[in-house]
């Protein structure tokens, strides 16, 4: 199920603008990796290159390699649609499909590509995915109600259930708690801890305490100035990043001197 990610010399461009420069990173399977850094440092952009979601913007392109257990996501003939069904994503703001019921939201990804599921199989999948997202007990009596009627935190966990229903190898999370209250944040953080037993989780966060709480390893990104590309400054165990970082910039950032 879970796969490791190896990124080699990755540059990301929007048209002629180089947004991210020279990233090398190795992310182990079944781990939680946090990307931290000031706004605009390219951490979200980099995260999106891991499932080729950056290509949604016209003119975005990539140089270098992203290997998922050795398979290059940018190799010739690789379909971005297939990549995304292996590398799931959870977004900054909860985005369940408003016109679908809770059940249909969970099954949305599975039903793609014309796949058919028997009723029993789909019921079982809905239950296991919602259990996996710690949401089952809260919604099991109203699976036919719209997903948009849930609270923000429940919606975000519904989105996680939707992502894990397609049984991905990796789950990317782009600031998944930034629109949530502290209690919902806690629920999602607990969930991230459980997810790493099955999946490789990569999370972008602005909240350094959150990175410290949930992640095994942390990557710090920074930019030299506006218009300059973002770079990976330091990547190490989370405790090392927060307690004795090697780089001056990392220390300044985690100690709250800038950003």
């Amino acid at each position: 199920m879970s796969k490791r990610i190896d990124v080699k010399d990755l540059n990301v461009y929007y048209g002629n603008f180089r947004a991210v420069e020279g990233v090398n990173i190795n992310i182990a399977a079944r781990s939680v990796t946090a990307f931290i850094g000031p706004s605009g440092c390219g951490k979200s952009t980099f995260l999106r290159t891991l499932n080729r979601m950056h290509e949604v913007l016209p003119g975005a392109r990539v140089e270098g390699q992203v290997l998922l257990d050795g398979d290059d996501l940018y190799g010739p003939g690789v379909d971005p649609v297939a990549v995304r069904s292996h590398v799931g994503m959870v977004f900054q703001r909860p985005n369940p499909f408003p016109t679908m019921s809770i059940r249909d939201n969970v099954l949305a990804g599975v039903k793609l590509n014309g796949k058919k599921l028997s009723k029993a199989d789909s019921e079982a999948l809905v239950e296991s995915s919602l259990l996996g997202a710690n949401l089952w007990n809260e919604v099991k009596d109203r699976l036919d109600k719209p997903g948009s009627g849930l609270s923000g935190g429940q919606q975000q966990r519904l989105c996680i259930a939707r992502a894990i229903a397609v049984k991905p190898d990796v789950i990317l999370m782009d600031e998944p708690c930034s629109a949530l209250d502290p209690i919902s944040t806690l629920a999602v953080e607990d969930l991230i801890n459980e997810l790493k037993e099955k999946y490789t989780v990569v999370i972008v966060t602005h909240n350094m305490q959150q990175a410290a709480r949930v992640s095994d390893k942390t990557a710090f990104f920074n930019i030299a100035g506006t218009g300059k590309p973002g770079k990976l400054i330091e990547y190490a165990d989370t405790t090392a990043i927060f307690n004795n970082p090697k780089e001056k910039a990392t220390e300044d950032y985690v100690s709250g001197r800038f950003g």
Partner: protein
Amino acid sequence: MTKAADETAHALPKGPEVTTTQTKTPEQSGGTPKLSSQGGAAGDRIFSGAALTAGIIILVVLCAVAVFLVAQAFPALVAPQDQIASGKGFWQYILPLVVGTVIAAAVALVIATPISIGVALFISHYAPRRVAQILGYVIDLLAAIPSVVFGAWGISFLAPALVPGYNWLASTLGWIPIFSGPASATGKTLLTAAVVLAVMVIPIITSISREIFLQTPKLHEEAALALGATRWEMIRMAVFPFARPGIISAVMLGLGRALGETMAVALVLSSGPLIASLIQSGNQTIAAEIALNFPEASGLSLSTLIAAGLVLFVITLVVNVIARWVISRHKEFSGAN
């Protein structure tokens, strides 16, 4: 009178929306906190007054049209039936026209809706930006062409061009009543009129649908793409459900135009009694019937024509009520909550 019938058809679809804004406005101004500055409060009052006035004007115009139609049509409705439409009686006279009108508009929508949605999707989600912009302008320009021009095009180009097609339909699909032959030799049939109507409503449906498609939240599109959806699957998952009420509204506006369109139908259709076949000459629509007979009408025959206009008014009203009902049925899942 033709003008009035035309305008009711256009004004109607907007009616219910205006009503809602109008009822909301006083509440909102009433709930404004008193802490705001004096100028802001005055601005608020002016705006809510203006919105209220605009809403009331629409309703007043609508009521005036309805009252006028009922008052003028009244003599035809109460007169002895053997005096109306050379002895046929009003209902015998109006029924074929109603059927002709509804069929012409329905066929026009069947042709126009898929094309419009396809073009709108192409502009909003497939075409490169430059092509999309040019195409958008062209579509908007198409909406500005007067209907008499469409009518002239239909009569001089489209009708003769469709004749071979009609002959083919009559020979191969003639067993279906709507295609039964012999096909009209001039091509001046209800189907030709419906095609002209379709061309006329395509710009309306397309430009509204395009605006709605462009407003689909990026968030939902990305949610679908991130699950491994292809572009078409993303459109089905995120764009269509979001746009559904808007598409229905767009189609209703198109229907309003198709039902009320006068000039193009009057020019293109070689009218006659009601027949099932769409490819023979015959049939007539209410609006075209009014336009053709209005100049010589007086007294009771004038009332009869106005009563026909009243029937058209009622049809449009009913269609719009049904459309509103369809939209509101799925409110819980509309994403508004």
